[in-house]
């Protein structure tokens, strides 16, 4: 499959702006460095030509931005949806979080995004990055230009990509892919196979690093509550900064439960975590359990689908049986 290029996106964005289809464009713009790309709204051709970027670091999921942007805007907003973003897009529509009529969605094929951390682990002192068909050419302070294969720096979530199929769009750039039978649950399974003590040790090691910056929540496309329970004094679990380690602990469990059945497994939580905690492994555990107990379900695969936790059958497994199921598998 041909990679989508910046030029293609700009051409499309300018075309839709100038013919009046949309009045704004949700896109990416360069940050301080070539790899810290931030989402931005463009309203003129000029802004786009100057600021719009698209490269291997444009992993940010835009769906969530539509909740706020569509409310404020007159006319339509253009959004580019990678396959994983399109699932979040549908999920938000299922939850009536924005008006579909106010969005013009362009699906874009995706060959996987790069992981900044992986890149930094390989290369020190990044000055700038150039892209080529066969890899990245990184200009560095110390080692001159270093060539890096895409495969070496591909993000975990892209290696275990669940789908290259755009499930929502008004128009598609490039070719559509297929849903992939990915190995994304392997890591969860290997954790499940551990003894409780080993699992405890693993999670203690991971979660003790949390600095409670809320980045996971802020990036999560399922976390679009008008008022987050962690910010709500009436909820009983309000806490902005860590008071006790224990309250802290609850944060990730509650958050994972809150998005259970709604999480599309886009991987944004892990991507944005400054402490590199594999938060997606919590969400995937719920997804894996729900798939195994209640039948395959992919949040966002279709608009209006009924998530497992707001559904039931009379013959569901008992909570105790869910454990036993794990034992039989092991």
């Amino acid at each position, binding site marked *: 499959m041909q990679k989508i290029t910046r030029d293609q996106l700009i051409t499309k964005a300018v075309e839709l702006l100038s013919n009046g289809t949309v009045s704004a464009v949700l896109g990416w713009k360069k940050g301080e460095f070539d790899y810290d790309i931030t989402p931005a709204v463009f309203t003129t051709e000029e802004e786009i030509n100057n600021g719009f970027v698209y490269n291997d670091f444009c992993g940010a999921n835009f769906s969530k931005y539509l909740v706020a942007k569509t409310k404020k805007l007159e006319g339509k907003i253009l959004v580019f949806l990678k396959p994983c973003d399109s699932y979040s897009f549908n999920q938000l529509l299922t939850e009536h979080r924005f008006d579909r009529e106010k969005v013009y969605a362009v699906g874009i094929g995706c060959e996987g995004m790069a992981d900044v951390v992986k890149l930094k682990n390989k290369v020190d002192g990044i000055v700038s990055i150039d892209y080529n068909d066969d890899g990245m050419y990184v200009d560095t302070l110390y080692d001159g230009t270093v060539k890096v294969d895409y495969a070496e720096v591909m993000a975990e979530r892209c290696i275990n990509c669940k789908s290259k199929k755009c499930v929502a769009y008004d128009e598609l750039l490039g070719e559509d892919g297929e849903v992939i039978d990915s190995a994304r649950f392997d890591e969860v399974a290997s954790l499940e196979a551990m003894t409780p003590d080993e699992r405890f040790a693993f999670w203690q090691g991971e979660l003790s690093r949390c600095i409670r910056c809320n980045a996971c929540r802020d990036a999560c496309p399922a976390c679009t*509550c*008008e008022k987050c329970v962690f910010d*709500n004094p009436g909820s009983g679990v309000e806490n902005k900064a860590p008071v006790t380690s224990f309250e802290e602990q609850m944060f990730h469990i509650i958050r994972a439960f809150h998005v259970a059945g709604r999480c599309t497994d886009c991987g944004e939580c892990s991507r944005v975590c400054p402490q590199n905690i594999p938060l997606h492994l919590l969400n995937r555990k719920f997804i894996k359990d729900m798939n195994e107990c209640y039948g395959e379900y992919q949040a966002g695969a279709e608009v209006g689908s009924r998530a497992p936790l707001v559904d039931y059958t009379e013959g569901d497994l008992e909570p105790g049986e869910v454990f036993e199921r794990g034992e039989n598998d092991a």
Partner: protein
Amino acid sequence: MQRIGVFVCWCGSNIAGTVDVKAVAQALKLEPGVVFSTDYQYMCSQAGQNMIIDAVKEHNLTGIVVCSCSPRMHEATFRKTAAAAGLNPYMVEIANIREQCSWVHKEMPIGTEKAIILGKAAVAKVNLNTPLTPGESPVTKRALVIGGGIAGIQTALDIADAGFPVDIVETKPTIGGKMAQLDKTFPTLDCAACILTPKMVDVAQHDKIRIFSYSEVTEVKGFVGNFDVTIKKKARFVDETKCTGCGDCVDKCPMKKNPNEFNMGMDNRSAIYIPFAQAVPKVATIDAGACTMLKKGKCGLCSKVCGAGAIDYTQKDQFIEEKYGAIVVATGFNPISMDKFDEYAYSQSKDVITSLEFERLTNAAGPTQGKLLRPSDGKHPHKIVFVQCVGSRCASCAEKGKEYCSKICCMYTAKHAMLTRDKYPDTEVYVFYIDVRTPGKNFDEFYRRAVEEYGVNYIKGMVGKITPEGDVLKVQASDLISNKQLHIDADLVVLAAAIEPDKSARPLATMLTASMDTNDFFTEAHPKLRPVESPTAGVFLSGACQGPKDIPETVSQAGAAASKVIGLLCKDKLTGNPCVASSNEMMCNGCSSCERVCPYGAITYTDKEFRMPDRTTQVRRVASVNPAVCQGCGCCTVACPSGAMDLRGFANNQIMAEVDAICK
């Protein structure tokens, strides 16, 4: 801050025997908000209640904690006490220190310690209690009865006689249902038509009853006391107000070869038809699938002969919207299809019939004018075999039969067998049965008469195979008592087919948000104590839609449902349970999670305008709970991701406070 009074009950020695009540009262006095604490021998006694009332007045209490027996016992009592003292009744909490403390623990220190903790939890909760007022909603004083069989007819008559208007919606062109098709009724053998048709006439002439025949319910909105129902009146191409039911059109119609549903397809009717002579309303209906005028625009004979000018080929389906306070479901039953039981050769021989077909064969208004003749050749049958439990009590094959007992078959088969022997003494009649079930007044006596006086051969065993050969039906069966296999060359075989709920019931249940069991029978609010009410408030059940029933049972349930409806319609206003869910619109995401889990359809969504801090306005989709429909289970509160949904009386912060108090 609340001013809370704590009242610890001794319950004689029931509590005081294992719990140091004074210590409890003492300890709870130190809890935040508590301004008064005392103990007494019997709090529920008049003296105890007066003590509470006095304390409320004296100490200006705003909340009450009673440490006593289970709230299931005396919560209502102490709420009344609070009301008598001028407090909101929902400012009372009970700490259950009897059933869940003194009675299950033996040692005083342990019991006392736990009682104090339970008391603290109750205090913590009351601190967060708010006065609650039950909502009120008006009642539309009109009832809807869905289904016009004997169940619907009886319910409608009883409600109408009490003075409330009733509408009956019936899918067929006439009311009457299955009972109209029956010949005689067990165990008295009175003629079904003789007892049913006067009731049908009563319905037709009752000034409080309207009949929507050839109609169905297509939409139900609203809630108890306030249902909005859409009824589709299917086009019958005859103006009901003009048709006199004279039948001239029926005679003249050239399209005469259409299976007659009323006679179970055993004879034919014309394309324009009146189902039977006593039909109500006695109005003709055109079968659009059979009429050449409607299909090809050629014919028009009925219009030409109709003196009243009632024929209207251009008639369209009509939709009627009406408001009701209560809905009674009386959708009835049907025999199951015999397709999957072809070991009995139902599809192969016209002389293998179902019991309902047998009813028509013996009915004077039936296809043979009541003479028992074989459908294949019109000959008089001599050997007749009845097979019981065809498709009933069938556990291995869900797609074939039904696991339950159909209840009515034993008795109607005894009736068929007896009547056959009575009218045709030259016949040999066999009944194959698994068990004969006759629990009813005069039922077993009736069955025994069939055997002892009428000489019906009851054989314990089942028919395994029926082989039509030439003009006989070779019946192969077991006789378990004599341990033999029997081979009978029968002339006619009658299958007692299992009965199942009418197919229209399932979609109707969805519209009504009324629950059903796996067999598609409507579930009752309580199987013992509320058998004629659906769990959905304002929806009542009458007849076989709730489970297999015979006529007397159906009629008594119909009356019971009617009395429940009357009880509801008598009220001018309904007061609800104030412990219902409510949504904080500022926090609601509009995601529909709550709506999806609500078993009562109590939650709806509206677009609402909000003023934002920056003075702009924003339209958001938000949930709102109808307090008249909500029953207060709280399922929505957990489904809600933002915590916008909360349950009054069991609010998130109240339960958390209890948790904290217990875990402190």
